[in-house]
């Protein structure tokens, strides 16, 4: 029991920002009671008083709060009285046990139906009741590992449960993120007010899940993974965040496979046993073999055979597949009775009043009071993000006329539930004029299974309904000093998932991220050269313009049609069509497509990227939407310079912050392969044919596109000549832009990769790279430059380029086959 050290103080001594705070007359206010502030808010009120500079008086902007979160953060936390918290804690732990028992019973003996007289429609008409889960035996009887409870306080001061979220509750990541952001703004206050840290809850929850995974049949080295619907799903940002924080690989259904009834993760290093799965996809999407035999959307998310593995205890799924069966509001009014029968206890925490129409009396009540209740589809689960705080406070009567509604209730009564309209309590938030105002608030609190049984997270997520829509808030609870203090932000609970557990699909994405990054950089440099000459007065540089548009066409960035027009009509045409030339929608590999691809692949591997790196990638993607900023050649140059900077920043972030594991090697392999392909294409375009009159111009361009002008100058201190340029760009192992340099790097990477079959000396990949290495080493640069056929082709050069290109493509295929192919998305 924590002794409250504070006494309340009068509003008359309020800090500036609270002078105009006005509680509603007909609702409970969290901050104010009569003419004083409630005692547990004292530390915060004092802090606001001291903050005369107004340092904390602002909500975080979208830029600051992480992308992909459903609500903006209001930085002022919601404080809960520690004594009151103990009641909530007792009530919610009891509820967690109760709901877990009910789920186990529904999928087991169904005593709640046959002995405790729950109406059959409550289960059998509920689409979340998955028949295929009947007989599901969860390890240790733990079906629910994480439960979120939505709570609201009625005017009498009583907290009521508004919703039980048992399916795959979201918000755990957001709660942590909110705390980290809030803690940055109130660093000392957290300690001073003895606010309990959240980290302990996450650590204990993760410990229990991992331990459970290892006691399943999967074995002591079994992995725990987060099963996500992928980056296209709304919750992905949170999955990536939690994955990073807990050290769990974030996987999709296609990354998992079932062998001998057990679950394995397909990794770069082969199949690894999976013991526990933190499920973040809908139950019905988990197993296309048994749960979604129709072509339901989302069916491709799951893993064939997963349900049977889970139901027979070969993998622990948190929460158990089918857990959504107790999430409906129809069940609410039965909980007091079930608590008494199943646990032998009174239900501590009441629910908001509900009237499920599956019972005749309740149906009659609802029909007689349609204007006074919130009428809902009894079994439809409202996604957290799409519901709002306001819906608890007004009847959202569908527009259908009352008679039709009564008729519908009469015919399928079990589909309807009426809910009491609740006048929620209010709490302060930062309004737009930097003062604090009152608005209705709800709480989302989390109960998790830990090695010591269920525990309530000492904090949570509050949502407040404002004129700017719902905002979220951190929830503060004070406790004993041992649990309190600022969070250790960077500390990962479990050691980072090692690269040996890198899912093959992620490896594939990293490889392509490397390729797209490099390809984009090549395109941007070439465009920059082009616009440079156009800006200098295109007519004097007709040759350069022709060559550069030719290169852009060869590389697929520019369509032939547009290139021809630009050439014929000169600078003015280029200026008029600037944007279309730069982001040519008709070309096969336009800059716009490349930037989207970079963004898409980066998004797929987001949990492997630092937050700063991710921000850089998002910035890159935004560039192609800045059309309104580009009117002249100079604007375009600026944009391209900016892109070059951003691309270097992206490469820098990746190079500096990724561990030197398989993932990083694949990304770098992708870059190197792409760099070789680009070099070969450009050298072929500019040098393969003998064109004596134009050699100097071509060589200069070549060095420019290959970013080697300075290197050449320092090396040769003379105007470019062909042998020098070829030597520098192809053969010189000391030039980081040369083909030789890339080959050496590739060789080193491949040597370290896990699945290289070296039983006959060198693996096939190694042999392939070695063959290019040989060709380059043995090449005679004078012959490359000087052996010219009658048709004017540099035959030696042409042949070397061709062989290098073929070998590089072959290497790419080999990497694909060895490391990624088994990740092919399954067909039906």
């Amino acid at each position: 029991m924590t002794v409250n050290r504070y006494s309340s103080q009068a509003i008359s001594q309020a800090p500036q920002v609270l002078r105009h705070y006005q509680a509603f007359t007909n609702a409970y206010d969290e901050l104010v009671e009569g003419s004083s502030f409630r005692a547990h808010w004292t530390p915060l009120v004092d802090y606001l008083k001291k903050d005369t500079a107004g340092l904390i008086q602002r909500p975080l902007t979208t830029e600051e709060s992480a992308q992909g979160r459903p609500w903006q953060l209001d930085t002022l936390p919601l404080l809960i009285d520690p004594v009151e918290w103990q009641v909530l804690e007792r009530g919610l732990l009891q509820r967690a046990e109760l709901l877990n028992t009910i789920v186990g019973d529904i999928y087991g003996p169904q005593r709640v139906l046959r002995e405790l007289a729950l109406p059959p429609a409550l289960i059998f008409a509920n689409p979340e009741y998955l028949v295929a889960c009947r007989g599901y035996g969860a390890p240790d009887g733990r079906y629910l590992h994480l439960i979120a409870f939505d709570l609201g306080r009625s005017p009498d001061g009583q907290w009521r449960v508004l919703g039980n979220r048992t399916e795959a509750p979201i918000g755990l990541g957001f709660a942590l993120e909110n705390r980290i952001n809030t803690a940055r703004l109130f660093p000392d206050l957290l300690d001073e007010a003895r606010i309990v840290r959240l980290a302990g809850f996450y650590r204990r929850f993760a410990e229990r899940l991992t331990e459970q995974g290892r006691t399943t049949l999967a074995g002591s080295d079994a992995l725990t993974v987060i099963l996500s619907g992928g980056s296209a799903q709304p919750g992905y940002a949170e999955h990536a965040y939690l994955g990073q924080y807990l050290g769990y690989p974030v996987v999709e259904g296609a990354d998992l496979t079932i062998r001998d009834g057990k679950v394995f993760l397909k990794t770069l290093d082969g199949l690894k046993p999976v013991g526990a799965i933190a499920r973040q996809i809908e139950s019905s999407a988990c197993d296309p073999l048994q749960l979604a035999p129709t072509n339901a959307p989302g069916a491709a998310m799951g893993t064939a055979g997963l349900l049977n593995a889970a139901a027979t205890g070969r993998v622990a799924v948190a929460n158990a597949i089918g857990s959504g069966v107790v999430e409906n509001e129809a069940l609410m009014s039965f909980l007091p009775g079930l608590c008494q029968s199943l646990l032998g206890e009174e239900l501590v925490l009441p629910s908001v009043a509900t009237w499920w129409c599956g019972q005749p009396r309740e149906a009659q009540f609802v029909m007689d009071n349609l204007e006074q209740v919130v009428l809902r589809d009894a079994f439809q689960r409202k996604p957290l993000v799409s519901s709002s705080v306001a819906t608890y406070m007004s009847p959202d009567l569908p527009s259908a006329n009352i008679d039709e509604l009564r008729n519908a209730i009469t015919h399928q009564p079990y589909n309807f539930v009426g809910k009491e309209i609740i006048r929620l309590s209010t709490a302060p938030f930062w309004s737009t004029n930097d003062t604090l105002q009152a608005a209705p608030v709800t709480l989302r609190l989390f109960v998790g299974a830990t090695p010591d049984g269920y525990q309530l997270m000492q904090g949570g997520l509050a949502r407040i309904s404002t004129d700017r829509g719902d905002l979220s808030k951190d929830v503060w609870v004070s406790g004993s000093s041992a649990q309190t203090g600022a969070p250790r932000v960077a500390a990962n609970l479990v050691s980072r998932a090692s690269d040996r557990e890198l899912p093959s699909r992620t490896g594939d994405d990293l490889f392509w991220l490397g390729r797209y990054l490099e390809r984009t950089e090549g395109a941007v440099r070439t465009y920059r050269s082009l616009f440079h000459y156009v800006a200098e007065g295109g007519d004097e540089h007709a040759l350069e313009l022709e060559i550069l548009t030719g290169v852009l066409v060869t590389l697929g960035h520019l369509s032939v049609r547009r290139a021809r027009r630009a050439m014929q009509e000169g600078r003015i045409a280029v200026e008029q069509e600037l944007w279309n030339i730069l982001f040519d929608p008709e070309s096969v590999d336009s800059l716009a497509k490349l930037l989207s691809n970079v963004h898409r692949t980066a998004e797929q591997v987001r949990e492997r990227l630092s937050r700063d790196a991710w921000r850089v990638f998002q910035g890159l993607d935004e560039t192609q939407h800045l059309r309104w900023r580009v009117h002249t050649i100079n604007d375009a140059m600026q944009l391209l310079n900016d892109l070059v900077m951003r691309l270097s920043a992206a490469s820098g972030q990746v190079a500096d912050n990724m561990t030197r594991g398989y993932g990083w090697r694949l990304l770098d392999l992708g870059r190197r392969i792409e760099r070789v392909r680009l070099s070969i294409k450009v050298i072929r375009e500019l040098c393969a044919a003998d064109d004596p009159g134009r050699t100097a111009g071509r060589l200069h361009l070549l060095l420019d596109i290959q970013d080697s002008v300075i290197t050449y100058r320092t090396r040769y201190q003379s105007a470019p000549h062909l042998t020098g340029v070829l030597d520098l760009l192809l053969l010189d192992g000391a030039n980081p832009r040369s083909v030789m340099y890339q080959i050496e790097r590739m060789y080193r990477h491949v040597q370290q990769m896990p699945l290289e079959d070296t039983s006959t000396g060198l693996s096939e990949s190694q042999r392939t790279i070695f063959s290019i290495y040989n060709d380059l080493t043995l090449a005679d640069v004078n012959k490359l430059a000087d052996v010219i056929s009658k048709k004017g082709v540099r035959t030696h050069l042409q042949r070397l380029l061709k062989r290098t290109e073929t070998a590089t493509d072959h290497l790419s295929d080999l990497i694909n086959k060895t490391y990624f192919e088994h990740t092919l998305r399954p067909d039906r």
Partner: protein
Amino acid sequence: MRLTLSHETHYRYARPVSISHQLLRLTPRNLARQQVLSHAIRVTPEPASTTTRHDSFGNELTEIFIQDYHDELIITADASVEIGPLPEILFDLSPAWEQVARDLTCPTHDGAWDAAAYGYPSPQIQLEGARAFAEAVFTPGKPLLRVAMDLAEKIYTEFDYQGGVTDVHTPVPNVLAARQGVCQDFAHVAIACLRTHGLPARYVSGYLLTNAEPNVTSLIGADASHAWYSVWCPEFGWVDFDPTNNLIPNQKHITLGWGRDYGDISPTTGFIHGGGTQQLEVAVKVNVS
């Protein structure tokens, strides 16, 4: 009567399949009137693993897992069953349908509890439109089994048996609107009509002997694979009705298994890696032995 059954499912894939995971519901059930004398499922190529278990409806599931590359998959189920004659059913002794519906909202014995699971909408049977369609059949006080028989007749009279216009996922309201379909659709429609009135009805999957004797009018069924519905009635238990042929199944219907709708008892559900486009051929033969 003793019947032999052969059910061959043949997939041909455009590209090789590396992994195939199939769930088969191809084992006929043993029932009071149906005795399975022999039964075998053969799969080519040889599966790496084959396991059997029962689903919550009591149907036998066979799960196979193949991990050799293959470009065709052949599943053959052979069975021999002995089917006893149907005792006479005294329709008019069954309780009024409203009474049964009322009792089911609060079941008092095991039989009723088992039945209750079939009394509500299921993934492939939504109830929209069913009440209006069946209005004339559900007259007040009519004995339940009479209702069920009249329903079969109404569907038989008003719907055209037409292959190819529906598929295994066609929703009930679409079938109601089109007034045509195959046995599976007719069973779904009847079940929807019963459930919308609070009555438990299940979907039965099975086979039909279509050519018992030459020169006798053949019964209708798709390649001898057939489906019908069963309604639960206190004292009588589950009673089958075949709306495609407007009769009560007797010795020519082999029961494979049942569920809430087709989705619960589809003969094969599979998940494969690779394969490209696939061709499926199903051949079912039922003979008197």
